[in-house]
Structure formats: structure tokens, C-alpha cells
């Protein structure tokens, strides 16, 4: 297979099901690519000393999908050799240590996919309308706020 004939593909899934690193990495694997970089966000067991018993994610799904596609468009402008891109984000209850997000990027050479996956997770945290509610042991809870959330860092959007 010639390396130019395979079209770049974008994969976005926002799902209540468990995520699989193998599944997402296989989506982006390409015979013309020597590198797949993944980022897996997992839920942590503590926040400021409080024990987290569970996390719940919700999303404005159609807009979240659009915002992820905008990130993909940015990536393709900055890294011309990136081949396939995939983001799977989980919603609903996510037990501690399980993945809330898996991002995968393939490219012929590794530096593109390594840099692009970092860009994707940073941008996702700033612009994609998804919310995490951390529920603590004493059954208090808190809606989390990414420090990257873009309208928390400037006076005007």
C-alpha cells in the first residue's frame, strides 16, 4: 500500500462505556506510520486530601464533538504529517483508576504524534464542554474546573 493513498481519518466518540487504549490505538494505526502516541486521563483517588469515591462526567455532546473536531483541524494545520486522530471521552460514572479520556495520534515519525497528543489534551481541557463532578467520601461533591478552561483566564473570550 502506498503511503499517500490512505486518507487521514478523525475519530470522535463520547460514550458511557468503558474506554480501551488498545481500541483507540488500533483506530489510528496505519501501515505508513511508525508512531502512535496516546494520552490516557484516569480518575484520581484524592483531591486536596479528600478521598474521592467516584466521578461523574456530563457533556454538551454535539458541541463537544464539534469542539474536538476543531482541535483536530488545528492539529492538521500545525502538524502536516499527522495521519489519524482519535478522542474517546467517557461520560457518567467513572470508577477511580479507570480512563475518562483516551487520545491517540499516529504519524510516520514520532515527534509529530508526541507533540500533537500533548496539544490535543491541553486544548481539550480548555475548550470542550465536558464537566466532571467529584464525589467525596463524606458525600459532599464539587464540580471541577480545568485551569485551562479558556474563559477562566481572560477578561474577554
Amino acid at each position, binding site marked *: 500500500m502506498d503511503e499517500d493513498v490512505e486518507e487521514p481519518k478523525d475519530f470522535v466518540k463520547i460514550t458511557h462505556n468503558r474506554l480501551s487504549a488498545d481500541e483507540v490505538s488500533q483506530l489510528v494505526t496505519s501501515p505508513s506510520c511508525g508512531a502512535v502516541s496516546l494520552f490516557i*486521563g484516569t480518575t484520581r483517588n484524592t483531591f486536596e486530601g479528600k478521598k474521592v469515591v467516584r466521578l461523574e*462526567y*456530563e*457533556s*454538551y455532546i*454535539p*458541541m*463537544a464533538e*464539534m469542539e474536538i473536531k476543531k482541535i483536530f483541524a488545528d492539529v492538521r494545520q500545525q502538524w502536516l504529517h499527522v495521519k489519524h486522530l482519535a478522542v474517546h*471521552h467517557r461520560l457518567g460514572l467513572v470508577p477511580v483508576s479507570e480512563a*475518562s*479520556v483516551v487520545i491517540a495520534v499516529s504519524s510516520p515519525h514520532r515527534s509529530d504524534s508526541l507533540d500533537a497528543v500533548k496539544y490535543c*489534551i491541553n486544548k*481539550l*481541557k*480548555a*475548550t*470542550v*464542554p*465536558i*464537566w*466532571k*463532578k467529584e464525589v467525596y467520601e463524606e458525600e459532599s461533591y464539587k*464540580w*471541577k*474546573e*480545568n485551569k485551562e*478552561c479558556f*474563559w*477562566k483566564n481572560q477578561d*474577554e*473570550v
Partner: protein
Amino acid sequence: MSCEVLVLYFAKSSELAGVRSETLTVSTEITSQQLWDQIVRSHPSLSAIQDQVVLAVRQEYVAIGDELLILNTGDEIAVIPPISGG
């Protein structure tokens, strides 16, 4: 002229408003600040987060401010508190 838009609430804004979505009658030409003010009049508890939200109009971010919006019946407006995905 006025129109009926669908307003969606998420995360903390949905808890404060006590609804996840509702239909609101608003003017077809309105700044995003006026739109937000009208939303807060319907749900005064939302004033607690007014420095921390943006709106989405037809699934595009719009800061609360002087920007003039042209709305149509059926348009989707969302109240977007600080995000925490990832």
C-alpha cells in the same frame, strides 16, 4: 420581534436553575449580556456563577458582553459553567 429559543443548562448551572432545558421567549436582536440577564431573571440563583460562565449560541461559544446576537426560533442556547473534561 421575538422568538422562542431552547436554553440548555449543564453541571452547576443546571443544579442552580433546577432544570436541564427549557424554552425561553427572547428578542431576535439581543446582546449576549441582555440574554444572560434575562436567563438570570428566570433563575435568580444563577447570579452566583455569573462571573464564571459563558454562553453557547448554536453550539458556538459567546462571551457575555456587548456582542449582538441575531436569534431565530429553535436556536439552541447553552449556559456553560467552567469545564472540567479530560
